[in-house]
């Protein structure tokens, strides 16, 4: 599903250049649930942003679903994101003046679906994350866990190939973290490829594979025994 080869990325900080990713090779198959671990500054978020085409690599090859991603301008990147990727952010990034349903329907709008289809599909995904009754609530009326579930529904609504989650539990307490992770496991169980960036070991162990980054290189890549989270959402 995802294949990257010799990926480099550096940021210019005034006169100095900060080399964040120093040659990353990584292959992820369809249906995997991968945790990308690492302390802050290890480059894990940068890697996720490049995978999500929110940022561009300086060097290296990136193949997503047999499509070589290169020479992106903002328009084609936007189209790829819309087609292939779903995002879940640490800070949810819901649009605060739109209610839950409208937030979930937004990627469908950019996919060009009509209003009725958007509404039905969005409601369907909200039901999946257990928030059907909250469809007309604004983000400010939802708890952190609920917000993140809405965000996950939004990411799923466009039926992406890959779901990218950047510290999805970073802003949540352990109980709601478990709820969210349980949801992610469930989605993965249905066959979706998911990448989760985290610095928490227990979250990482809820995934099937842990890739550990340190100072811009992969230092460890191992399959683990998945801890299944039971949650009653």
């Amino acid at each position, binding site marked *: 599903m995802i294949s990257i080869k010799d990926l480099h990325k550096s940021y210019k900080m005034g006169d100095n250049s900060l080399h964040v990713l120093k040659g990353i090779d990584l292959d992820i198959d369809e249906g995997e649930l991968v945790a990308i671990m690492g302390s802050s500054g290890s480059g894990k978020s940068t890697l996720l*942003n490049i995978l999500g085409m*929110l940022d561009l690599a300086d060097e290296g090859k990136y193949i997503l679903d047999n499509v070589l991603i290169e020479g992106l301008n903002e*328009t084609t990147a*936007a189209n790829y*994101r819309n087609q292939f990727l779903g*995002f879940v*952010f640490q800070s949810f990034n*819901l649009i605060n003046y739109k209610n839950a349903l*409208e937030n979930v329907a937004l990627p469908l709008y950019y996919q060009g679906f009509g*209003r009725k289809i958007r509404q039905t599909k969005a409601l369907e995904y909200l039901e999946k994350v257990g928030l059907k009754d909250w469809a007309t609530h604004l983000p400010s009326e939802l708890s952190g866990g609920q917000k993140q579930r809405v965000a996950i529904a939004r990411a799923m609504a466009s039926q992406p190939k890959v779901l990218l989650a950047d510290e999805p539990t970073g802003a949540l307490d352990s109980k709601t973290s478990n709820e969210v992770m349980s949801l992610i496991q469930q989605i993965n169980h249905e066959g979706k490829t998911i990448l989760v960036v985290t610095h928490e070991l227990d979250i990482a162990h809820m995934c099937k594979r842990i890739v550990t980054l340190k100072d811009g290189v992969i230092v460890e890549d191992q399959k683990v025994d998945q801890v299944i989270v039971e949650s009653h959402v």
Partner: protein
Amino acid sequence: MFSRDSWQEIFETIRKNKLRTSLSGFTVALGIFIFIVLFGFGNGLKNSFKQFFLDDATNTLWVYPGKTSKPYRGFKANRRIEFENSDLKDIKENFKFFVEDVTPRINRSSRVRYKGKSDNYSSRAVAPGHQYIEKTIIMKGRFINEDDVVNKTKNIVIGRLVSQDLFKDEDPIGKYLEMGTSAFKVVGVFQDQSGDREERLIYMPYTTRQLLEKNNDKVNSIIVSFRSDLGYATALVFEKQLRLFLKNKKDIDPRDNNGIRIRNVADQIRQNQQFANVLQIIVAFVGIGTLIAGIIGISNIMVFVVKERTKELGVRKALGATPKSVIGMVLQESIFITALSGISGMICGIALLRNLGDRLEEFFIIDPYIDNITAVVATVLLILFGAIAGYLPAKRAALIKPIVALRDE
């Protein structure tokens, strides 16, 4: 870009961001409203200026006698020139091609009494043609006519304010009042646009005044009206010829500029017109200034709006919005708001001007108006600049990497 869906998206955004919407809408509406009202007031000022200064007939020459400054044909310098009735006749006969009418004027001031009330008023002894020159409007009765002049009648025409002062609610027509030492019969009441001073005058036949003053034939000044289709250049030629003719008749050195003074109203009109044009420029300046202030206002708000939405635009981009659709959304929204509020501001401004009418006359604003083309052009200009002002920050925001936009807190 203009599909029903994108409109729905925009209406939703507008409905849910009422503060932002009303802020930018209000700025545009206020800007265009102030522009239209100011511009209308400027036009009202121009109108009252016209009424004050351009009220009298423009095709007239005012001829005043002076004092000679050079000796000529055996006369010494410093001789006082006087006009008499024969001058009127001579001007009429010698300049038939140019002249429409000639009227003398003799100014006096005298005590006027009626039923115990009395006051001092200026009187003008004139010929019937004077009515046209001053654009005197008869309210009641009639003006001095040829019959009065020939028969030297003691008929007078009094100003509106004279009638008000002396007669109150009484009808003055046919009443006799005492002026100086004789009794005069009021045959008419007049009003004049030029103001109160004009309406405190009393008109009488010039021959009657001459009869009262030992039956002489002197006149103070002569007002010549010429054909209005002559044009400015011909009027100047006429003025020159008239001057030469009178200098010759009165034995004044042709090079002596002090014997006779001629005031050409056409000339003065030109000066006044220039002043009116300056007024117009000031009005335009104020208008453009207001418009620029409005444009700056809407630009600021657009920058603020886009800044406020940076994160939202980042989210939209992460979800697959192309830069084009982001710019389109911001622009469509801003144009929609500015157009709607611009037009309502324009309508409000025009409605206010229409309703004001002459209510601000005491502030020298008469019949303020704005022509539709100026109003529409100003509105379109504001909408256009609002769109440009929205486009630049929207474009910048659309090209920011979504990751940077998402980090924006």
